[in-house]
């Protein structure tokens, strides 16, 4: 059965982390997901626009929902922050008819109105709930074996849990399950539910790097060969700022950070360059080499049999 969604790419996947969009498009077909991209959608506001202009931020989300409603499809997000912001906006709009009327008035000049019929789901949730972990495991070509991958959920995927309603905010396991389904071992560490510091990294770099570095170090100390995240903003913090975070906390981190669909793609046997890993600032090569070693060992075992 094909799962049909309106794809909301968000800003990061189109610009600063284009490898997220590239890797998403490379894997969703194999998972039985077919998408129509919402090309005229705006930024979700990322929780920042709402700080100055709450109604304006809700209108940005409502505009996107109305576009998806026209297509008759639910929305698939690929960014944890978009998921948190839009999921929260959707809950508010659906539960407060007066607010919906007020926000729809803002959409009127464009001829749009949101009726409150759309659901917003992150790719991670769609993989776990709708594609199913068995189907994902069926698609795995390269066993990651004993490689250890640290899940990093991102704040907006977990809190406030009343808006999201997917994972247990204290002990989430969706990403852990996906790591297991692709044949790797999830690293259990306290930092996996904490904050990457990204929202204040430009103006309060010291604080953000201390947060970021502590999470990376904890994962690394837990034996992680790589980290995986469903949020491109976390990715920017964890990858682009990793070297600085390491210097800040006095640790050699060097931990490759994968976007969720990149991890899925590598396990599916899709060539790494087709997943855009070469765009990362922290080289993914050590992880790819470990995968390659395991492939050779497995072939040797097969040869002996």
């Amino acid at each position, binding site marked *: 059965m094909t799962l049909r969604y309106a794809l909301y790419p968000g800003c990061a996947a189109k610009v600063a982390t284009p490898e997220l969009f590239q890797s998403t498009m490379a894997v969703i077909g194999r998972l039985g997901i077919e998408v129509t991209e919402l090309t005229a959608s705006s930024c979700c506001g990322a929780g920042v626009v709402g700080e100055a202009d709450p109604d*304006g931020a809700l209108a940005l989300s409502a505009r996107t929902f109305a576009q998806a409603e026209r297509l008759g499809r639910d929305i698939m997000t690929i960014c944890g922050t978009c998921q948190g912001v839009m999921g929260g906006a959707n809950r508010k709009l659906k539960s407060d008819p007066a607010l919906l009327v007020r926000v729809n008035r803002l959409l009127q000049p464009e001829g749009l109105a949101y009726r409150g019929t759309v659901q917003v789901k992150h790719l991670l949730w769609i993989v776990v709930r709708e594609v199913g972990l068995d189907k994902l495991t069926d698609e795995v070509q390269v066993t990651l074996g004993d490689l250890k991958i640290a899940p990093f959920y991102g*704040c907006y995927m977990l809190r*406030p849990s009343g808006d999201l309603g997917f994972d247990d905010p204290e002990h989430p396991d969706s990403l852990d399950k996906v790591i297991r389904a692709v044949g790797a071992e999830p690293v259990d560490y306290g930092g996996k539910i904490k*904050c990457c510091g990204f929202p204040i990294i430009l103006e309060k770099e010291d*604080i953000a790097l201390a947060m970021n570095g502590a999470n990376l170090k904890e994962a690394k100390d837990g034996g992680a060969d790589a980290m995986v995240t469903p949020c491109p903003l976390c990715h920017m913090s964890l990858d682009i700022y990793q070297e600085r975070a390491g210097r800040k906390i006095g640790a050699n981190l060097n931990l490759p950070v994968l976007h969720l669909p990149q991890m899925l793609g590598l396990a599916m046997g899709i060539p790494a360059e087709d997943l855009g890993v070469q765009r990362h600032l922290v080289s993914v090569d050590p992880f790819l080499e470990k995968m390659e070693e395991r492939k050779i060992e497995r072939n040797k075992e097969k040869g002996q049999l």
Partner: protein
Amino acid sequence: MRLAFTIRRYNPELDTDPHDETYRLDVARGTTVLDALLRIKNEQDGRLTFRYSCRSAICGSCSMTINGGEKLACRTSVRKEWAQHGGITVEPLRNLPVLKDLSVDMGSFWGKVRAIEPWLRDNDRQPAAAVTMVVGGSRFHNVDACIMCGACVAACTVHEVDKGFLGPAALAKAYRFVADTRESGLARTDRLAVLQGPAGMWDCTRCNFCVEVCPKDVQPMEAIIRLRRESIEAGYDDTGGARHIVGFRDLVARFGRLNEALMPLKVIGWSLRKFLRVLPLGIRMLLKGKVPNPLHKPIGDPRSIRDLLKR
């Protein structure tokens, strides 16, 4: 039902490090974690130390870390915890100095609440003259429901790395006074001015931990966001944090999507030192194809998005 409780123990006079001890207890339906702790203390180990008073989720004394999350022991059901987590671990609040076992030193917490001057005052920092106010509605957005339990501060991810951060409880309390119409306008801007500095309102990352753990639905982060909004509206728009918000909104209004090439420039303003700090990463991102054309075309009809955000 006989359950095991794993409790973090630490006596600074005897122990070099904290350690866990397990106690078994028959518990009846309706038992709270505080009930269980009291029984363990009375029946098994009188030295077990924890703070409590009202047993009714009003005094805020018994907040602790239960199964990894900050909770009031007096309103946490043993059975529900067991059903959800398959065990019960009890530890002191995180990121505060442990005095003994489950009791932490709340000195820094109270110091920060006092620092925001949690009383009505006039602009000369004297107590305000008595002015009546119509109470009711959501004037303080539930901040006055705070019971000062410290759960939000223990869970705060910024406080974890920067113990000087005023933190969610004190900042929410500050908002409560900023929103109080009985104070003069000057007193209000004075409050906002003080909170612009380091360790103030702009250090929050919006991680939402405080909102998640608050037992009284105070939503401290929402109060911090309101402080920021009030600041920008009052003309305090020259901090990095304020420039981030205003710049972000302007870019989305202009391009429909965030222009990530221009965003850092909006935040750092005209500071050469900050520009030189951002530049090396910008160059590395450019080489990896991660920097967009700063003059990229707006998506769709940009007027429609500008209209949404123009007010």
